[in-house]
């Protein structure tokens, strides 16, 4: 079949750390590049920095037009001048995750064996914690010893939790949104469908598709379609599409008979233009491996022992991918160690995606939480 044209390679703002990075898997990445964007101004005390952590298919373009897709920043509802994360007041940093495909070191980066080939599936299996360690290198490079806040949703929320456990002294306030302390069996199962679809694509070539000049687009599109269903609620799908027909004439088993089908196909095909299949494999697996309690003998509270970080946990009522019960479990674990924790479930029928959408209750809550923390942190 015809391949969609990929977006042209973009030069992303980045910094390379030649000392490399020791990974959880035991391997050592010889050099690590972190692509990032910043917004606002770092104050003289370097005390007003907020790190935003992106989700599975997000990127560093949180509050500006994405140079590849031309779409607005993925969290422009939240980040910008006068927004809840106010760039007039705070210095906002957002980095592409380790293993990603928007300029940070990942499976598309050249293999250090000088073959001139990308890492492909040889790229070491990174963890959420490894992503955070790479971000720490970036934050250190700004001379910032303590972040005022770390904020992120979904996989970004996992990174927030990892920040709060790996570098508790470096995080004044933590906002994990629509997330969990471990990836559930159901979540792993959905990811596995996506990975299998990619692997079954004849253009996958065992992960070496770049050498063949093709990409496993069908597989990646199916992966995205499956994942997309998990991001929305049944109510939202029904409201948007119901049983509306796209093409009323003819009865074919395959094809976009129903409106919801053509919507999903659009989601799939637009995704493959911007995302690398090997990155998708690497990052979904990193999420699957995430289990904070397991790293602390099964006791989640122990991960936060002695923490002075102020937490705000937010969940959305119709999110079945990262349900409220998961956020509440984190809140309770934080109570176990008498941590300072706020916990809010926002009423929304938009499913997991709600964290990215226009949800004023969420935005007001975050704005107020950050204002309260700013007062406690002595930020004017």
């Amino acid at each position, binding site marked *: 079949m015809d391949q969609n044209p990929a977006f042209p390679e973009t030069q992303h703002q980045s910094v390379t750390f030649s000392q490399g990075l020791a990974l959880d898997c035991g391997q050592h990445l010889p050099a690590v590049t972190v692509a990032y964007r910043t917004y606002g101004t770092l104050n003289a005390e370097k005390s007003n920095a907020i790190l935003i952590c992106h989700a599975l298919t997000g990127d560093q373009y949180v509050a500006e037009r994405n140079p590849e897709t031309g779409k607005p920043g993925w969290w422009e509802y939240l980040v910008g001048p006068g927004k809840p994360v106010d760039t007039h007041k705070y210095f906002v940093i957002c980095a592409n995750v380790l293993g990603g495909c928007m300029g940070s070191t990942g499976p598309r980066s050249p293999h250090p064996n000088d073959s001139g080939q990308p890492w492909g599936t040889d790229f070491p299996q990174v963890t959420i914690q490894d992503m955070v360690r790479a971000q720490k290198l970036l934050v250190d490079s700004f001379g910032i010893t303590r972040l005022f806040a770390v904020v992120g949703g979904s996989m970004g929320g996992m990174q927030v939790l990892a920040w709060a456990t790996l570098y508790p002294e470096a995080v004044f306030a933590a906002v994990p949104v629509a997330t969990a302390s471990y990836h559930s069996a159901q979540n792993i199962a959905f990811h596995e469908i996506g990975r299998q679809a990619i692997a079954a694509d004849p253009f996958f070539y065992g992960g070496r598709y770049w050498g063949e000049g093709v990409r496993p687009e069908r597989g990646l599109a199916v992966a995205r379609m499956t994942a997309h269903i998990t991001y929305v609620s049944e109510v939202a799908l029904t409201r948007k599409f119901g049983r509306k027909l796209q093409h009323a004439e003819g009865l074919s088993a395959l094809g976009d008979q129903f409106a919801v089908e053509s919507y999903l196909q659009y989601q799939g095909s637009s995704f493959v233009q911007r995302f690398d299949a090997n990155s998708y494999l690497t990052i979904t697996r990193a999420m699957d491996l995430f289990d904070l309690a397991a790293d602390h003998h099964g006791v989640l509270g122990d991960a936060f022992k002695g923490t002075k970080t*102020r937490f*705000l*946990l937010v969940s959305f009522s119709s999110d079945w991918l990262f349900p409220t019960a998961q956020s*509440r479990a984190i*809140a*309770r674990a934080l*109570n*176990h*160690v*008498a941590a*300072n*924790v*706020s*916990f*809010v*479930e*926002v*009423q929304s029928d938009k499913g997991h995606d709600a964290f990215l959408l226009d949800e004023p*209750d969420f935005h*007001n*809550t975050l*704005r*107020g*939480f950050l*204002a*309260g*923390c*700013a*007062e406690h942190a002595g930020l004017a």
Partner: protein
Amino acid sequence: MSRPRKIRVDLKLIADLVAPGSRVLDIGCADGTLIDHLYREKGCDARGIELDMQEVQRAVAHGMPVMQGDADTELVTYPDGAFDYVILSRTLQAVEKPREVLAQMLRIGTHAIVSFPNFGHWTLRLQLLLNGRMPMTAGWNRMWYETPNIHPCTISDFFALCDKDGYIVEDWLAADEEGARTPWRRSRKLANLFGEQGLFLLRKA
């Protein structure tokens, strides 16, 4: 961030029992007025639990650390001695297991501050005596089949429970509906008859 707000008289009475700079948990904190007051006026590390999600959002949006949760189920998640004061204001009569909640409060805090509407007030007694129906007053204004106040008690009942479970009453007072102090402070019997609310400061023996 909100400016200091004028707080209700009954909350002021509670705040007066709290030592400056202490760690406080306010159960059923509503929009966090008391927490805000304790932080601003007394330099306390004050946090809250609230059942009603809209109140929780209002509190957090005003910068106060509040989590959504139920006193009956959430208190067990806190460690022993995590707070200097655990406050339960006008809520004891509405929880599922008041005795258990009280025990949890004095496990996780060195002091408990409890206020509740006094079912021994003379108007209630008189209504029951004359009408033979469940009393209806400003404080007890819902029919028996829809009231959230499923465990009403009198000031004398509460003293008896403290004796039974070995809690020391460090301070107590009776107040009227608005929370103003009433003059029957030194007589338990008079307080039980004329006080509309009981307010207690407890610690473990």
